[in-house]
């Protein structure tokens, strides 16, 4: 039992991200409503971002902004130790990924509006039925 808790505590962040990812993927595949699919897509992307941010976490470290940073660079700068600061690289990557996800969201919503203005519904099965009728 103690081992189990140990494993859960060590990995639960990863498990939650996988749960969220499955929710998002399920919504994208199964949901019939186009906007619901877009919501699922965003949950999926955010889950991946959560995963990356988790990889950057470091026990006993602080946020990646150097203390006393202002003005004293050069010879007299005090030593910076890598163990004191959280890994900044995943944060950088995820800033980019967030931007990409909002960009995709914009395009997806624009497309959904176009689809709605043509078929007057957002339900995929109703749209397909309309196409088949023609």
């Amino acid at each position: 039992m103690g081992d189990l808790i140990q494993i859960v505590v060590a990995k639960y962040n990863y498990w939650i991200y996988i749960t969220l990812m499955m929710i998002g993927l399920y919504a994208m595949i199964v949901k019939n409503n186009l906007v619901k699919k877009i919501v699922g897509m965003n949950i999926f992307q955010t889950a991946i971002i959560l995963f990356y941010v988790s990889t950057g976490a470091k026990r006993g470290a602080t946020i990646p902004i150097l203390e006393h940073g202002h003005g004293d660079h050069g010879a007299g700068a005090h030593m910076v130790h890598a163990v004191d600061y959280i890994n900044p690289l995943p944060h950088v990557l995820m800033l980019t990924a967030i931007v990409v996800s909002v960009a995709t969201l914009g395009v997806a919503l624009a497309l959904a509006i176009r689809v709605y203005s043509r078929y007057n519904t957002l339900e995929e099965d109703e749209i397909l039925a309309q196409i088949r009728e023609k």
Partner: protein
Amino acid sequence: MSQQYPALLVIVPLISALVISAAGWINKRLCFPIAVAALGVAAYSSIGLLLRVLDEGAIVYRLGGWDPPMGIAYYVDHLNGLVLAVVSVVAFLNLIASKKSIELELGDKTAPFYALYVLQVTGLLGIVATGDAFNLYVLLEITALSGYAMLAMGKDRAQLSTLNYLYMGTIGACFYLLGVGYLYIVTGSLNMVDIANILPSLYESNAVLGAFIICLVGVWVKMAFFPLHAWLPNAYTHGPSAASSLIAPLVTKVMIYVMIRLILTVFTPEFAFNILAISKPIVWLACIAIFMGAILALAERNLKKMLTYIIVAEVGYMVGGAWLGNRAGMTGAILHIVNDALMTLCAFLVVSNIAYKLKGYAFDDLKGLVRKMPFTMGAFVVAALSIIGVPPTCGFFSKWYLISGAIQAGQYAFMVALLFSSLVNVVLFFRVIEICYYEPFSDGHGHDQHAEPMAEAPLTMLVPLFIVAAGLVLVGIYTGDIVNKIIEFAIPQGIV
């Protein structure tokens, strides 16, 4: 200046895409010349880059001046030198050929369309040139977003099929991103070469296996490999001609390049072919892809949609060839990237010429086309011969390599699939050409009537088409040189 080719290749299109979109608000006629100039520079520097690579070997370009594992580096070797040249030349020719049809189909939105076109090319060139796994994802998204926007400008159900493409494309890109994340957590690096150096000690790890599978599935979604192909036919069929004749030849091929790059550079052939015993099932999957692509193409009564199913089958060729795990198969796959880009471009340019004149490309619309558009149909015959794989054209040679690779690897099913697909292609194209020879049934007496006047597409559309058709034959003739001077060096010595 030749030191800066890798940067120019991608930066000039990017900046000109921005300038085009700004210039569109001032004067729409400025857009086309800027786009042509930008892609011309890109094509020129990619060919210059390829020649430099042939002379000096692989080139590393450090962006921002930082050394590779810290910063992002471009890593151009024989493999991506070749693909870069193909991408930029195809995009350039297609741009010139598509001017009239863009003006016809896009109306008052030509300026943003040109900007998106150039952005798409930027993204594709960047994907091919980059040596950083995460940078590839960002560029993938540029390509994808501009592609969605261009394809959705079509008619009928273009928006709906593009929205489906967007869902699938996002899943694919996210899977790739996730795979890179898995690699990052076990190696701590994002640079492809650096990852490859760290990985050998981790080959046993489940995380690396997971990363490989997720990346592979993500890339397969993007390239429309068989069970994941559902988005492709509708999205490509309903898009505007200029967009589909850019995206159909390039996007799937570039994704195949990414897969080959993942196998050869990131995970190394040792891991992909020897440690993981998944080559056989993947080649079987490729066989199914080829069969299904061919059969679905047979069922179509619409020229453009038929071609999109042929693309699905061709993706099967290349995936199968790359996974045969021997030199001939890999050569065939890389050669087929070049050939297939050219032949698909040729076929889609023919379709866009037909669409320009006829406003439709269902089989019933094509009757009497040989009389009406003899030059276009001439080019179509060349493309058809090449897709079937008839000797002087280039399609034959890549198929030859693929088949000999299949025999070497003992994968006879793959050989059968290739031959079957060639046979189906013969049926498909001769059916189309036969229809085109028929006169339309007009007023009862077919042969008394005067022949319909020739209504050929304008010269700006025909000349690039002829250049591509000639290219199909020329590439076929010079296959030996391409293989011996370029592809031979692109494949690591480990693969025999």
